[in-house]
C-alpha cells in the first residue's frame, strides 16, 4: 500500500518538475515574443482606430464606432503618398518573385557546375550581401552622382548632354533604386545552390540517360526538384521587397515618386514635425495585412505550378 502511494507521489513530483522545467525554458522566449511582437501588434490594431497624434501623445482617444475608420479614410483619400507607396512596395514585392528569384536561380545553376575558380566566384558573389544595405545605399548614392559617379558617364556615351541626377527624375529614380539592391542575390543564391547540391545524383544520371543535359536538364529535372526551396526564398524576397526602407532613405528620401510603405509609416510616426501615430498605425495594419496576402499569393502560385508539373519539391522551411 505505502509503496504504491510512494510511487504515485514520486510520479506527481516528477510531473511537477517537468512542467516547471518546460515553463522555465519557454518563459524567456515567450516574454520576448510578447514584448516585441504581441504587445506592439495589438497596439497597432487598436490605436489605428484612435485619434492619436502630436497633440495627445500620452492619451490615444477612440474615435467612436461611427467614425472608427477615420484614420483609414485620411490615409486613403487625403494623405498624398499612400497610393504611390503601396504601388511601389507592391512592385518591389512582385519584382522579388519574378526578377530576383530567377536571377538567383540561374546564377545558382551556373555556380553548381565545375568550372575552374568556381569557388572564388561564389565567394565574391556573396560579399555584397555581407555589407549592410545602409552602406550599399551610400555606395550607390555615389555611383549615381551626376558629377563623379559612373552611371552618368555611361549615359553620356549615348547622350552627350545628359547632366541630370537620375535619382531626381521620376521613372529613372525608381529603376535606379531597384537596381541598387535587386541584383545582390548572394544569400538567396546560396540557399538555392544548397538545395541543388542536395539533389540525388541518381536523378541527374537518369535524366542524362533520357538525353536531357545542360540547360534542358536544369529546366526539366533540377528546377522541379528544388521548388520547395524556390517557394521559400520567393516568399522571403517578396516580403523584403515589400518592406523596403533603407534604400529609399539613403537614395531619394521618397523624392521623384519613390515612397515605400515602410517609409510612409516612419515618416508619419517619427520624422514628421506633426507626428500622426494613429494614422501611422493604420498604415501599419495595411502593411501587415498586405504582407499576409503576398505570402498566400506566392504559396498559391507555387502550389498551382507544382500540381501542373507534378514535380517533387524539397522541404519548405
Amino acid at each position, binding site marked *: 500500500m505505502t509503496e504504491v502511494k510512494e510511487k504515485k507521489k514520486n510520479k506527481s513530483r516528477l510531473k511537477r518538475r*517537468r512542467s516547471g*522545467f*518546460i515553463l522555465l*525554458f*519557454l518563459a524567456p*522566449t515567450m516574454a*520576448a*515574443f510578447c*514584448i*516585441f*511582437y504581441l*504587445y*506592439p*501588434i495589438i*497596439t*497597432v490594431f487598436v490605436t489605428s482606430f484612435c485619434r492619436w497624434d502630436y497633440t495627445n501623445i500620452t492619451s490615444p482617444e477612440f474615435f467612436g464606432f461611427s467614425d472608427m475608420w477615420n484614420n483609414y479614410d485620411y490615409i486613403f483619400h487625403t494623405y498624398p503618398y499612400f497610393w504611390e507607396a503601396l504601388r511601389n512596395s507592391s512592385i518591389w514585392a512582385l519584382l522579388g518573385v519574378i526578377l530576383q528569384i530567377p536571377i538567383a536561380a540561374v*546564377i545558382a*545553376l551556373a555556380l*553548381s*557546375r565545375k*568550372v575552374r575558380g*568556381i569557388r572564388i*566566384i561564389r*565567394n*565574391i*558573389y556573396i560579399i*555584397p550581401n*555581407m*555589407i*549592410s*544595405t545602409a*552602406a550599399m*545605399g*551610400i555606395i550607390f*548614392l555615389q555611383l549615381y552622382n551626376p558629377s*563623379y559617379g*559612373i552611371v552618368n*558617364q555611361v549615359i553620356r556615351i549615348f547622350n552627350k548632354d545628359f547632366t541630370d541626377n537620375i535619382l531626381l527624375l521620376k521613372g529613372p529614380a525608381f529603376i535606379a533604386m531597384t537596381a541598387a539592391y535587386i541584383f*545582390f542575390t548572394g*544569400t538567396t543564391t546560396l*540557399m538555392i545552390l*544548397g*538545395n541543388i*547540391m542536395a539533389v540525388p545524383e541518381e536523378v541527374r544520371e537518369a535524366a542524362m540517360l533520357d538525353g536531357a543535359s*545542360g*540547360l534542358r536538364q536544369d529546366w526539366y529535372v533540377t528546377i522541379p526538384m528544388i521548388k520547395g526551396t524556390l517557394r521559400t526564398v520567393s516568399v522571403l524576397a517578396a*516580403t523584403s521587397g*515589400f*518592406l523596403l526602407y533603407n534604400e529609399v*532613405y539613403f537614395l531619394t528620401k521618397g523624392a521623384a515618386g519613390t515612397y515605400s510603405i515602410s517609409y510612409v509609416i*516612419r515618416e508619419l510616426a*517619427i520624422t514628421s514635425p506633426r507626428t500622426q*501615430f494613429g494614422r*501611422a498605425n493604420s498604415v*501599419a495594419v495595411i*502593411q*501587415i495585412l498586405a*504582407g499576409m496576402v503576398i*505570402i498566400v499569393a506566392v504559396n498559391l502560385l507555387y502550389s498551382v505550378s507544382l500540381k501542373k508539373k507534378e514535380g517533387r519539391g524539397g522541404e519548405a*522551411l
Partner: protein
Amino acid sequence: MKHTNNKTKSVKSLSGGTRIFTYICLAWALIVSLVPIVWLVLSSLKKDPLARPGFQLPESIYLQGYISTFRDLHVMRYFGNSMFIAGVSVLISVVMISMSAYVVARMEFKGKKIVNIMLYSTMFIPATALTYPVYNLINNLHLYDTRAALILIYSCSGIAVSFFVIKNYYDNIPRDLEEAARIDGCGYVQTWVKVIFPIARPGIMTAAVLAFLNNWNEYYWASLVLINRDKLTVPALLSTFTTSFNTNYNGLFSAMVIIILPPVLLYCIFSKFFIEALSGGAVKG
C-alpha cells in the same frame, strides 16, 4: 554530403550553348558584385575623385582619407559599439532560443501548437509595421538613446530564423543520450546544460553567426533609438555621412571602405562557415 564534389559536372562535358550561358552568368555575377566595390576602393585612393571620375586610375595613391578616418572620425569607437550591441544581444537571444527550441523539439505539453505558431509567425510580421509601438515602449521604459534599447530590440527580434536553425539541429540528436543522462541522475536542466548544449553547439553557433551578421548590419532600429553620436552603431553612423563630409569625397570614400571592411574580412575568414550555414550544409566552403 561527402560526395558533393562528384555531383557537379565538369563544364567541358556540356554542350556549347550551355557552356556559353554558364560563362555569361558567372561573368555577370562577378561584374555585379565587383563593380561597386572596386570603384569605391579606386575612388578612395584619389586625392580628388571629382577630377578623375569613374574607373580612371589615380595619379598617385593618396591615403590621407584613411588616416583621417581613424584619427578624426574615431571609427574604432563605432566598431566597438556595434561589436558590443550585436555581441550581447546575440548571446541573450541564442541562449534564450536554444532553451525554448529544446523544449519544443523534445517534449510534449499542452499549448505546444500555439507556441509553434507564435514563433513561426514572427517570420512574417513586418518589423517596420511595429515602428511606433516599439519606439513608444522604449520611451516608456526610459531606454531612449541607450545601448540597452537596441540590445532589447535585437534580442527579441529575429526569433524565427534562430529557432528553426537550432531546432533542426536538436532533431538530429539521438534521444538515447538524454535517457542515459537521466539514468545517471541528471535533472532536466542538468541534462540540457551538460549533455545537449555541448552537442548542439555547431547548430547554435550557426544561428549565432547569422544573427550577429544581421545585428551588425541592422540600420532601421539603430537609427530610430540612438541619437547621441558616441553611442551610434556603424550603420547608424552612415546616415550622418551624406552631410558630414560635405565635399571631402576622398574622406567619404575612404571611410566607406573602412566601414565595409570588417564584415568582408569576417566573411573571408569564416566563409566556409557562412556557406555551410546558408546552404544547409550541402555546399562546402
